[in-house]
């Protein structure tokens, strides 16, 4: 009798193996001895395979970003756009590969103007901070962006292209690649915290500028945790867009 009342007062769970009713805090079933593990073993078996998939995805990024940063063969508009298309295509392809699970990230539940404005304001403030601290460090961080300006200089509607390629496409496709595909896959390999750390670090170092890491890592960590907290990737896209747009305006004005 005393046991019954115990179970009634405490939270209960059902044994994963034999279905007996047991107390929530029990780590093993008292009648069959089965471990009450949160994760099903068969789900963790393919972690190594997922890791290799992530490595493949990241190798494509390293290759393309390396080519763009260290060779000067992408100096015409056509080649430049084709690089952007390859990176965007990679992001979309990997994201869509696990569409059934990833599509829920694209849902924007609990949309809130206040939150959007707050994230936008943080982004603009962050961009100001980075701009002035970098100016102080006397390092040109938007060196790749300057390349954009020279490519589009003299073109009709240059301003539109510059905003499009420095603020719109990176916000959308970098987020899709790193907070979309990469973080989502890492969450299946590691716990939430480690997944955010890894995705942020990989995002930061792919920019191939070690001095810029001081702001890239906090930037990516922030978006990573926002993505986890809000359960949608659109706030991150908006944050990224505001940040890059502010940086772009700085370089421009």
């Amino acid at each position, binding site marked *: 009798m005393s*046991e019954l009342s115990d179970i009634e007062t405490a939270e209960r769970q059902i044994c994963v193996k034999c279905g007996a009713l047991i107390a929530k805090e029990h780590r093993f079933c008292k009648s069959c001895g089965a471990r009450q593990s949160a*994760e099903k073993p068969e789900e963790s078996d393919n972690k190594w395979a997922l890791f290799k998939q992530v490595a493949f995805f990241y190798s494509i990024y390293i290759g393309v970003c390396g080519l763009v940063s260290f060779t000067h063969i992408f100096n015409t508009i056509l080649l430049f756009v084709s690089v952007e298309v390859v990176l965007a295509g990679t992001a979309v392809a990997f994201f869509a590969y696990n569409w059934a699970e990833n599509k829920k990230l694209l849902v924007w539940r609990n949309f809130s103007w206040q939150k959007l404005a707050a994230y936008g304001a943080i982004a603009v403030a962050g961009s100001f901070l980075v701009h002035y601290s970098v100016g102080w460090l006397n390092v040109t961080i938007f060196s790749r962006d300057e390349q954009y300006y020279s490519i589009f200089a003299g073109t009709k509607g240059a301003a539109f292209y510059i905003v499009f390629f420095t603020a719109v496409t990176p916000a959308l496709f970098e987020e899709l690649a790193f907070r979309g595909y990469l973080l989502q896959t890492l969450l299946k390999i590691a*716990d939430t*915290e*480690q997944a955010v*750390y890894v995705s942020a670090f990989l995002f930061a170092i792919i920019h191939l500028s070690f*001095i810029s890491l001081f702001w890239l890592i906090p930037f990516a960590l922030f978006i990573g945790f926002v993505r986890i907290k809000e359960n949608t990737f659109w706030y991150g896209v908006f944050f990224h867009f505001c940040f890059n747009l502010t940086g772009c305006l700085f370089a421009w004005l």
Partner: protein
Amino acid sequence: MENALPVPPIEKCAHCYAEIKNDDVYCTNCGYPLQGTEFEQKSFIANLEVIGIDMAEYNKKVRAAANTLYYLSGVFILSGIINFFILKDNADVLAIVIPTFILAMLFLLLGSYCPKKPLACLVSGLALYIIVQVINAFDSPMSLAKGIIIKIFIIGYLIKGIKSAIELEKMKKENNII
């Protein structure tokens, strides 16, 4: 009649000493077969020992990978110092030396956080190392061949560490080890 078969009250698990109830067949804290045969109880303990040995083996590989990160940190500090003295009179000396020291710091940080977050640190370390190699290769393609055996060893240690870290986390989850 009631006193004919006195059952000694079981209060603590013989294996983990957690409090238990009389009619529990298995310990609710460690899964020890309280009412099992002697063979079942012995094989339970043997099984735990096997898990312990496996985990020790994986931990060893993770530690080796962490040491690889420390080693890399040392290499970059050394090369930064050497470069500084070679290029002392060059105007761009800081632009070359500072990134080297940043790399050394990053590897040091990753190495020191490795015991806490092994998977995150080792994956980050491997990615960083490969990116450094790629950057160097773009700079001078011949640099890839320099010390190629050491490079393969470094990457091998890191990959083994990552594999072990994945296994460790899996084992911890499956066996409810916190």
